[in-house]
């Protein structure tokens, strides 16, 4: 399988399909196209050629699966379609009327042909957009596709350069432990801040940027009039964490700066780790935008916060009457997920050997992602205006990921607020999560394709080449209640897990992390994870050592 755009295994045709194609080419498909019926929710079937109910030519039955011969258009039921091939030589390939799927009567199996799927999809396109050629791709692209990170950001997040510039080796300190591992003092209920800081300190591209001098707090202060710069303060925290000193560090200056920044936001009392995370990225971005006098939207932003964490979400709203879909794209720095309950089993049940009861009601991260990308029917009280029908219609909405970020932050909505009782509560439900995560099924190409029955067709061509495989490197967990709880971060460095509980850093085994109750999970692209795990401790001490001052 190639990276990027998920590709199909090109299905090898059976002998009979191959012969059919040889003798008849696409003519059968083209004439079938007239009869294809497309439904707004993406399914296709073969419409009745006349008003009569189709019946099997052998038994006159009309129930069960019926097949429409591609050559002579006669209809046979499942039991008798073999008879048809015996009486008419070469009439081996038929179409399942209800599902518009090719069927080889001799092999007694469903078969697949990209040309057939193309004919089906063209019919969909023609139906939806009125495009007679059926060439336009499904869904409109409202923004030009832009590649992430031209030049600067990419270079600085490349760990090769950081390795050359930096030495982390401090023979006095416990140098057998990973670099940058250092406890953070709790300054008074600041574990929400500490847990996120630990994740940022060890997010490979983010870390590489700061350690390579991507934001030099000395030159920055001189440049800007406004003394407040969150990136500078983060830079200071990085220096402290990677200095080699293992005594816990107090991020007091950072707290002070952040509170000054967030005084502009709705509230400075935020004690929620996710809120903190968003506001820190916001602070980094704002300063960047100001200093460069730019006003670009987040999708193209070159600031380190967006360069590392920003992805693009696609939202499709489909009219349930005509199938017309309106598509929008929005950048995001994280994805907030609702917990899936046992009411929502994962889709694509190609092979689900579900263990009885104990596990089938367990929430899983993949289940949450399935829920996130599931097509959701909007209620009849929220009909949306359809451009095609020119009136308000019942609609369905579906989210998918157009472009994945380098670091994917997944946030679990464990907070439930009832508008009726005005009470809030925490959802303590356990969530299973994988250490290796493949995001392919949640990409726009996969989701849109699935909506149309997984036909072989170029749905979203030219998606970014970023791979969809991720590895977890940090997990922020919350224990306790809404009113009084405690955040702890688990870091995964060189395949060893460390528990970062404010000032206390301890080794833990993987099982403990798996069993914990996660609130935010940080995944990084697998290639970056592997690079980051390469052993740095063999580097010689460089003269740049003083850069991180002690």
């Amino acid at each position, binding site marked *: *399988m190639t990276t990027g755009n998920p590709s*199909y*295994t090109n*299905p090898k045709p059976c002998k009979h399909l191959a012969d059919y194609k040889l003798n008849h080419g696409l003519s059968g498909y083209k004439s079938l196209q007239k009869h294809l019926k497309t439904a707004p929710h993406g399914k296709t079937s073969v419409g009745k050629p006349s008003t009569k109910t189709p019946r099997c030519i052998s038994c006159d039955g009309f129930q069960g699966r019926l097949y429409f011969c591609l050559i002579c258009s006669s209809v046979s039921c499942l039991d008798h379609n073999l008879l048809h091939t015996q009486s008419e030589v070469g009439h081996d390939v038929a179409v*399942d009327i*209800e599902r518009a799927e090719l069927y080889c009567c001799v092999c007694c199996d*469903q078969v697949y042909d990209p040309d057939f799927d193309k004919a089906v999809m063209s019919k969909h396109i023609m139906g939806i957009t009125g495009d007679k050629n059926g060439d336009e791709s499904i869904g409109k692209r409202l923004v030009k596709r832009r590649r992430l990170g031209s030049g600067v950001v990419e270079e600085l997040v490349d760990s090769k350069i950081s390795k050359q510039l930096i030495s982390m080796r401090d023979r006095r300190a416990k140098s057998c*432990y990973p670099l940058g591992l250092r*406890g953070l*003092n*709790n*300054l*008074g*209920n600041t574990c929400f801040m500490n847990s996120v800081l630990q994740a940022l300190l060890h997010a490979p591209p983010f870390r590489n940027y700061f350690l390579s001098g991507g934001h030099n707090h000395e030159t920055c202060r001189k440049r800007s009039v406004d003394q407040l710069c969150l990136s500078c303060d983060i830079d200071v925290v990085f220096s402290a964490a990677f200095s080699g000193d*293992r005594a816990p560090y107090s991020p*007091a*200056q950072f707290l002070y700066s952040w509170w*000054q920044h967030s*005084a502009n*936001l*709705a*509230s400075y*009392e935020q*004690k*929620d780790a996710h809120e903190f995370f968003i506001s820190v990225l916001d602070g980094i971005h704002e300063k960047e935008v100001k200093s460069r006098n730019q006003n670009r939207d987040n999708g193209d932003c070159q600031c380190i916060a967006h360069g590392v964490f920003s992805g693009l979400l696609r*939202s499709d*709203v489909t009219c349930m009457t005509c199938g017309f879909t309106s598509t929008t794209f*929005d950048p*995001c720095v994280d994805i*907030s997920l*609702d917990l899936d309950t046992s009411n929502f089993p994962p889709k*694509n049940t*190609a*092979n689900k050997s579900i263990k009885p009861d104990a596990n089938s009601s367990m929430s899983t991260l*993949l289940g949450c992602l399935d829920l996130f990308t599931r097509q959701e029917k909007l*209620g009849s009280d929220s009909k*949306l*205006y359809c*451009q095609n029908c020119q009136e308000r219609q019942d*609609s369905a909405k579906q*989210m998918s990921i157009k472009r994945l970020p380098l670091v994917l932050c997944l*946030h679990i*909505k*464990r*907070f*439930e*607020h009832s508008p009726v009782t005005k009470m809030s509560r925490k959802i303590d439900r356990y969530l*299973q999560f*994988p250490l290796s995560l493949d995001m*392919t099924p949640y990409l726009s190409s996969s989701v849109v394709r699935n909506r149309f029955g*997984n036909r072989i067709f170029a749905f979203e061509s030219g998606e970014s080449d970023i791979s969809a495989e991720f590895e977890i490197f940090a997990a922020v967990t919350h224990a306790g209640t809404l*009113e009084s*709880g405690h955040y702890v971060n688990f870091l995964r460095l060189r395949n060893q897990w*460390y528990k970062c509980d404010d000032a206390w850093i*301890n080794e833990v085994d993987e*099982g*403990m*992390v*798996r*069993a914990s109750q996660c609130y935010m999970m940080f995944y990084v692209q697998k290639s970056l994870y592997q690079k980051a795990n390469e052993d740095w401790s063999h580097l010689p001490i460089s003269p740049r050592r003083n850069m991180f001052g002690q």
Partner: protein
Amino acid sequence: MSGFNEDNMGSHAQLSSQFFGDLLDSIIVDVASECHRIARLGLDRNLEEEEEELRLSAQARVRVADPSNSGEANSKYVVDIFGQTHPPVANEIFDCMNCGRSIMAGRFAPHLEKCMGKGRKARLKVTRSSTAVQNRYSQGSPVSTYSPYSNSTSTSRLSNGTSSGAGEEYSNGTFQEP
């Protein structure tokens, strides 16, 4: 269709259960057809890896729940991996950057809150973090139960984007006030 005692049913009941059976069969075949296509086109996910992850997580939970295992999870720490110990309240001392006083680390935040005091009035400005609004924990602080957005009424189910018009957006963007 098994298990129907036809003698006891009127012809209408028979007919309707037959229709039901046909519909059910059709739906089952739909699923089978989809799965067949997915399998043939190589679109199925890495189910082995997924199941392995599920298995490991289940095992881990069992182990952690077992009381005979060393209570790593909540035991008091003796030393950290660097061989250090730390007091419950961090006792490093430094100067407050706002007022200049010497403050103990573990008491810095509450001090700073008072110290920065009235100068830090919160303005109710809309932020980008509105999806997180519905997902906030307070944390131990006595003055923490509040909700700045009084109309955070949409259920967490829909906070990925309210249905307020065609082509509306995933709201990590602005929070629409009615």
